[in-house]
Every structure is written in structure tokens, then in C-alpha cells.
């Protein structure tokens, strides 16, 4: 992790709430899918804290793309950044998805919910680049789905809940239940992640989930972004979403 700078290359609305922003870093930028950066929104400190934003995918050696949902004053300001705006960020941060050790021909599942699909694009790209042949992607949106064109995969299914009232997890069971997935990667609302964990618990299939939590430092110092993890000595312990995650083995996470 380092303090880095770059400039906005493009910033475009994807739908009423989500924007897609490209940033060209001032130097080559290495990251692995699932990692994030902590972006300084305002040099005048409103808002005060940086905003942790997951990296959606790589565009080229120095350019990365973010998919951001407007949630508050930080993301709203970022959505207004024009081409050329200077970006101050700390990154890359956290532990991304572990994609080692899978059979290249075995089916893998990527499951996304809403803005949780952001880091999964880069994951699908990486899996494709590494020659994984059977990556299934299932993304659910409350309304106005986006992003299909960026998912390189074997099979892609999107659910628009405003037209088709079904959760991705239910669709998964009813339509893809017979597929012997070797690994699962998920990012989305907590309720979805909890359900994914339940579905695959008995199959001993490794499920990696990417979590979100409010952060201050993003580098492991402030202990603000706690996630409850199973632990032998205590009933539980807390890990830091920023450095121990954001991607966790679902079997370790205690959902409240």
C-alpha cells in the first residue's frame, strides 16, 4: 500500500445511482481482484474521511475502473468529478480473492448483488485470463441492471428483481443446483452472503465472500472495520475488513 495519485479519465452514469469512473494512475498499478483503494474525496476535508472503494477492473497497465453507488456526500462528490480531476488514493489495500488451486475445467461460480458486482468484474477478467473455462456468473439487481458486457465468462445470467421477483440465491438453487461448482466467489448484501454460505455449507465447497464495513484508515491502524470471525480460544474474535479482508472464507465469518 502506498499513497498514490492519478487522474480521472472518464466518469459516466451507469444508472440513476451508479457511476463508472476510470482513473489513470501516475505510475503502473498492480492489484489483485477484490482489493480496494481508500480515496480522498475533498482536499477541504468535507467529508473528512477517505472512502474505501473496491477496484472493479483493470483497463490497462496504469488505468483502473471503479463502479460506485452514490450513498452519501463522499460518493456524490466523486460522481461529479470530471475528466482530469486529480485523485489521491491509498492502495492497493486488503486481501483479494484467492484464485489459486482450482481445476481449469471445473465449474466456478461468481455471485453478485447490486453494487457488489463491482469487484467481480475484475475477478471474471482474471479468471478468463488464467484460462478458467467454466465460470458461471449470476448477478442480481433490484432494478436497472448493468455491467453484463464486462463479464467475460462461460455463462452469464442477470436477474432484474423489478421484473422477475426472485433472489439470485433462489435462482441458483432452482436452475444451477445440479452444477458441481468447485469454488464460489460472492459479493453483495449481507443477507445474500449469509444465504450463499448456508447453501454451500454442506458441500464443503470453498466460498469466498467480499465484505463491506465503514472504515477510517483503511490500513489496519484504527480497528474501526471489525468483522466477527470464528475462533478457538474465544467464542469469536474480530478481524479487520481492511487488511484481513475484504475477502473472507465464508465458513469463518459469523453473521449476526
Amino acid at each position, binding site marked *: *500500500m*502506498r*499513497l498514490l495519485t492519478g487522474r480521472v479519465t472518464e466518469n459516466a452514469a451507469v444508472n440513476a445511482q451508479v457511476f463508472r469512473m476510470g482513473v489513470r494512475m501516475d505510475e503502473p498499478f498492480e492489484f489483485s481482484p477484490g482489493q480496494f483503494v481508500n480515496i*480522498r474525496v475533498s482536499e477541504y*476535508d*468535507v*467529508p*473528512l*474521511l*477517505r472512502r474505501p472503494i473496491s477496484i472493479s477492473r483493470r483497463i490497462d497497465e496504469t488505468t483502473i475502473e471503479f463502479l460506485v453507488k452514490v450513498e452519501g456526500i463522499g460518493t456524490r462528490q466523486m460522481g461529479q468529478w470530471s475528466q482530469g480531476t486529480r485523485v489521491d488514493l*491509498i492502495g492497493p489495500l486488503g486481501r483479494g480473492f484467492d484464485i489459486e488451486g482450482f481445476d481449469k475445467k471445473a465449474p466456478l461460480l461468481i455471485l453478485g448483488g447490486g453494487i457488489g458486482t463491482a469487484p467481480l468484474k475484475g475477478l471474471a477478467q482474471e479468471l478468463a485470463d488464467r484460462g478458467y473455462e467454466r465460470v458461471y456468473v449470476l448477478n442480481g439487481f433490484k432494478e436497472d441492471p448493468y455491467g453484463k458486457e464486462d463479464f467475460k465468462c462461460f455463462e452469464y445470467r442477470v436477474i432484474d428483481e423489478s421484473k422477475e421477483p426472485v433472489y439470485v440465491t433462489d435462482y441458483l438453487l432452482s436452475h444451477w443446483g445440479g452444477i458441481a461448482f468447485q469454488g464460489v466467489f460472492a459479493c453483495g448484501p449481507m443477507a445474500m452472503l449469509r444465504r450463499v454460505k448456508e447453501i454451500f455449507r454442506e458441500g464443503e465447497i470453498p466460498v469466498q465472500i467480499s465484505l463491506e*464495513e*465503514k*472504515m*477510517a*484508515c*483503511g*490500513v*489496519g*491502524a*484504527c*480497528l*474501526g*472495520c*471489525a*468483522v*466477527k470471525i470464528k475462533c478457538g480460544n*474465544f467464542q*469469536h*474474535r*474480530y478481524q479487520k475488513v481492511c487488511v484481513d479482508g475484504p475477502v473472507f472464507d465464508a465458513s469463518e465469518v459469523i453473521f*449476526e
Partner: protein
Amino acid sequence: MNPLKTDLNGLKLKNPVTVASGTFGFGREYSEFFDLSTLGGISVKGLTLKERLGNPAPRIVETRSGMINSVGLQNPGVENFIREEIPFLRQFDTRIIVNINGDEPEDYARMAQILQRADIDSIEVNISCPNVKSGGMLFGTDPEIAYQLVRRVVENTRHHVMVKLTPNVTDIKVIARAVEEAGARAVSLVNTFNAMAIDIHTQKPVLFRKTGGLSGPAIKPIALRLVYEVYEAVSIPILGMGGITNAEDAIEFILAGASAVALGTYIFVDPMAPVKTLEGIEAYLKEKDVRSLSEIIGKAHE
């Protein structure tokens, strides 16, 4: 002569810029951004006798110009700290200030004993943590308890003892005088302000523990006023903190009476802020033709 050196009544710092407990871990994370030897001192994450898990999430919430935290003293315990973290921190030419906390007054004395042989530079007695069920801030709001507790720490250590004060009292001067009388060599102030944020959609407090401690630029003017008041009330030196973002803020605290300052929350915003603050203070001293920092400590009182 180094114009930046300063002295907290026996704790000699090569410069007045330190980092506040709870905002800097044990230094490892920020050592990737700058050389920790730049700092006058590091106050480490608050320690307890035994390892502590901390509070459930949400632990933090941002508010206008500040943040409220309720981490709950998550830490590995004092003995793990001595074994795992002191060797790392000692690689750097900076003062190690060990922030200690307890459920009972006697926990502090025990920790002082345990730290007796540790290679540290100061013990910061934290009687001002607002985020734990027992102890913490309760001890820092009662002058009699504060006196007894600090007395016991002082009796049990050879190290420099500093006491971290809470602003959540009617009159901070009373507490400052009590700990001075008990033998504290310096005071550090202020800790965070008790605060709350409510989510209007869930219609509940945002933080799991409902309240937490407010820090950041929002508290700076109040913290500054408290340092100014304490400077007039005691004769021991002050380590001043509360919302400092840059050299101008730091110089205000020094003029109010702080012999050294600590940056905290703003490090999350700009990890380089302590370095920039130090450079700014140095430039200010040159510009004002001040040969020693001590010439301007408390100058706003003249």
C-alpha cells in the same frame, strides 16, 4: 542546538510532534508511509492487562468534520505488546509512550509493574476511554479516584508517568490538579468527547454501543480551550491534542500551553500529516526567529 526539542518533565522529545493512542496502532502500518524516526514520540494503541476483543461493529461513524469511534480497546494485552511490539518500535529513534487502561484501579498498578522492566519511555495512564463498560473514563471524572489510581501507578514504576484526561467533566482543572498532586509528570489532553449519531432510517443509534468518542477537526477549538485552562491550573507540562490537522493547529496548541502535540484522527485522512506538521512548525520557528520551542510554549497567556 535543535530548536525543536522539548521536554515533558523528564520525557525528552527531539521534536514536539507525536501521534495519539488508538490512531497509530503499534506503528507498523504507518511505517510503510514514512520513517517513524521522524516522530518525537508514539503513543501506542491502548493496552489492558489481558487481551481484549473490542466492541461489535459498527464501531465508527463519520460526522461533520469528525468521527465517532467505539472500538472498545481491542488490544493484545500488555505482555504480548512487550514481546511482539517493543522490539519493532525500538528500531526507530522515537519515544515509546505506552497507553494503559483497566477495569479496576488496581489493574493500572499491575500493568505498571509488568512494564517495569520493559524498554519504554513513558506510561500514559488512560483514565478517559469512553468506550468500555467498566473503568476507563469513570476514573477520570472523579478527582479522588484519579488521585489514588495515579498514585498507585507512580509507586509501581520507574518510568515517566503521564495521565490522559477526558474532556467529559465539568472542570478539567480539578482532575489535572489531582493527578499532578498524585505524582504525574505530565498530562495529555484531550481524549474524545462522548457523542452519538442516529440513523434516521433505522431510527436507532448508528454505533453498536450507541455512544462513542468524537475526534477530528470538529473538537479542535474545545480541546484548545481545555489545554489553555489546564496550562494555568498546573505546573507540569502538557501534551496537547484534539483535532490537529496541520502545523497551524499544532502551533495554536503550543501557544495555548502544550509542550508537545499529538496528531490523531487526521492521520487517517493524510498519513503524511505528522511529517508535514513537523516541517511546518520548523518553518514557523525560523520565520518568527524563535531559537527554541520553549520560547513560545504558553505564549498566548502573556
